[in-house]
């Protein structure tokens, strides 16, 4: 299948391989070494690396700068862009900036509310929402125009992605919401991390019923649990997260020193199960601050070596 952009991620997906992506959070300062190290750690085990955009509203080095750094290292970044902090002028501007460095992947998000982060007294922007951002990128790429109507000099060649959360409420519109994003022009999806596999498969069933899995590439999100404490925190304190009791029980059944390894084991088992789920086009392994485990997970799940996209 022909690709629409120079994106390596797009090529791997269109060639019919299961894609593997991961994600890194930029530093809380201007010292970029941290991103360089993480990139080096996982580069042979993933097809693309997301850089988060001031995630949970904690001010960090911007995603765009970190993506540029990865690109200059020869890696394939995914620029995460939230609509919380920038108006439509800045969003278009940053898209052009990213494209000028040949960053070919973008993930369009609304962003966590600023009350979660370090500047709860700040304004939020939300000039446009994540679905309108998808439309905006496609408009710039395919029509070669700004939102205001003028022609652009140099279209941003971006493979457009968004997030999906099959575990948030109301469940009944979670498939229609994916349909909306597809209608807006989304080409790939990374889901919220999955612990409730039954519920995820139920959502996938609804997705398949409407043929949506053929209109965009769905990458299943996974985050290995490090401990019972982490599992409980995610269950109780993270909005839109579904951690079934069995997950916590299984971790509790193992002594403290072995919980992390059990969490990794569970992650690998999930990948094995989801490989059989029709419509899953790949995996988005989010091991934030635990990136060193990504190679182990990818290998044990039988996803190594990565296809050469050239």
């Amino acid at each position, binding site marked *: 299948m022909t690709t629409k952009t120079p994106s390596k991620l797009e090529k791997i997906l269109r060639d019919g391989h299961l894609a593997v992506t991961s994600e890194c959070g930029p530093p809380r300062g201007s010292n970029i070494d941290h991103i360089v190290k993480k990139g080096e750690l996982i580069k042979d085990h993933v097809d693309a690396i997301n850089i988060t955009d001031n995630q949970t509203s904690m001010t960090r080095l911007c995603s765009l700068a970190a993506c540029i750094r990865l690109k200059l290292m020869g890696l394939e970044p995914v620029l995460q862009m939230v609509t*919380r902090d920038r108006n*439509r002028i800045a969003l278009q501007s940053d898209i052009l900036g990213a494209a000028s460095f040949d960053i070919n992947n973008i993930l369009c998000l*609304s*962003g*966590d*509310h600023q*009350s*979660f982060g370090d500047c709860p007294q700040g304004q*939020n922007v*939300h*000039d*446009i*929402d*994540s*679905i*309108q951002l998808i*439309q905006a990128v496609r408009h710039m790429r395919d029509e070669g125009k700004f*939102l205001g109507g003028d022609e652009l000099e140099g279209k941003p060649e971006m493979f457009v992605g968004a*997030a*999906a*959360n099959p575990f*948030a*409420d*109301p469940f*009944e*519109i979670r498939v*229609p*919401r994916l*349909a*909306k994003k597809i*209608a*807006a022009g989304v080409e790939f999806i990374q889901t*919220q991390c999955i612990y409730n596999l039954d519920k995820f498969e139920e959502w996938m069933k609804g997705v398949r019923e409407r043929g949506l899995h053929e209109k965009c590439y769905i990458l299943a999100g996974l985050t290995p649990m490090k401990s019972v404490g982490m599992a409980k925190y995610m269950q109780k304190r993270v*909005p*839109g997260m579904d951690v079934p009791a069995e997950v916590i029980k299984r971790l509790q059944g193992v002594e403290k020193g072995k919980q992390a390894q059990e969490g990794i084991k569970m992650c690998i088992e999930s990948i094995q199960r989801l490989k059989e789920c029709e419509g899953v086009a790949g995996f988005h392994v989010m091991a934030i601050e635990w990136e060193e485990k990504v190679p182990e997970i990818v290998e044990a799940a039988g996803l190594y070596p990565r296809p050469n996209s050239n």
Partner: protein
Amino acid sequence: MIVADKKPIEEIIETLKDHKNILVLGCNECVTVCEAGGKKEVGVLASALRMHASKEGKEVKIDELTLERQCDREYLDEIRDSIDQYDAVVSLACGVGVQFTAEQYHDKPIYPGVNTTFLGATEERGVWTERCQACGQCILATTGSICPVARCAKRLFNGPCGGSTTGKCEINAEVDCAWQLIVDRLKALERLDDYEKLCPLKDWSTDRAGGPRKVVREDVKQ
């Protein structure tokens, strides 16, 4: 109505500390309904200010008056003859009233006595919640009469976001998820298919972003 909340008395005392002839000016409309700035509240504040002044051994005159409203000249004109005796006015009207009063009485200090909060409705006595952000282009017809601009913390036009949990917003378990409400209402109106319609980009030029706004009705202007 415009909902306001009382300012802490300490703050008002501090603001008025150098004044000796004060008028506490209430408003009989919105701030009366939300029990922040009507005749009753004027009385209680004036009494508190008098007691504080007496306790400090200060000679301060504090008068009370409540106008029908403070956003129309005809009512503010009622104090034109008496205002000179005061060296300050603390207005318990909303931000509009405080400012409009100041415009009519250019060289008189007019201080706010309430914090104007939002456009909202009475859920029950003592509880008011926001409903409208006055964006200038009402889209309630497309969202089952529930406003995503005022009631969604991220003012999403194609919501909900992934943080919606059991009908509540990620910012606070007491805040309803506007998009849950919209979906419920579209269901009740048998228009759930409307959910998938893509909402176009908002024109914010009629909102605050476009600058201070004005409505002119030529058909009514004199």
